[in-house]
């Protein structure tokens, strides 16, 4: 059972990639990309967990008590907020693509062949 969280991270990564490969609409593709990205958060936070440790906030807890690893939380905290704006940039590219080519389906429109 002690391996399940890492298996979840691998599962979400692969499910996200499967969604990207199979997608028929760029908006769905961007959502699958965000799902793939969230797998890295699951992995990082599961690595940092310490059994019996409290959250790394020492407001009403004595600073010496056993706590989980704060570094991975600092890494993922900013990444989550930032990933929305990157997804928004990809969505705006998709919207521009729709203006030009009239479709949002990656199958129908290919740039230069060969």
């Amino acid at each position, binding site marked *: *059972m*002690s391996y*399940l*969280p890492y298996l*979840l991270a691998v*599962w*979400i990564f692969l*499910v*996200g990639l*499967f*969604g990207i490969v*199979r997608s*028929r*609409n760029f*908006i*769905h593709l961007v*959502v*699958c990309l*965000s*799902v793939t990205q*969230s797998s890295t*958060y*699951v992995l990082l*936070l*599961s690595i*940092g*967990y310490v059994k019996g*440790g*409290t*959250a790394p*906030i020492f407001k009403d807890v004595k600073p010496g008590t056993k*706590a*989980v690893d704060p570094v991975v*939380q600092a890494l*993922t*905290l900013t990444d*989550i*907020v930032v990933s*929305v704006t990157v*997804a*928004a940039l990809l*969505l705006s590219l*998709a*919207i521009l693509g*729709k*203006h030009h080519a*009239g479709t*949002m389906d990656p199958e129908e429109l290919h740039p230069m062949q060969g």
Partner: protein
Amino acid sequence: MNVIYVFSIVLAGAAALAVVLTTDLLRIAMLASFYTLTLVIFFLLLQAPDVALSELVVGTIAYPVVLVVAILIDRAE
């Protein structure tokens, strides 16, 4: 590793699969928010309140709005 952890992990995995398999856009937007909430639960179980708050705030305010407006733009053309 008691039952709550296992339950939240299975829930998150199932939600991720659900988001990827649906094709109707508005349903994807709702499922994406639901998937975010399952992650919030899991992060709380991992004793990561900051990250859970960040995921909650993003998953319920920023991401759905951007996604829904993009879907409306796609529909309007």
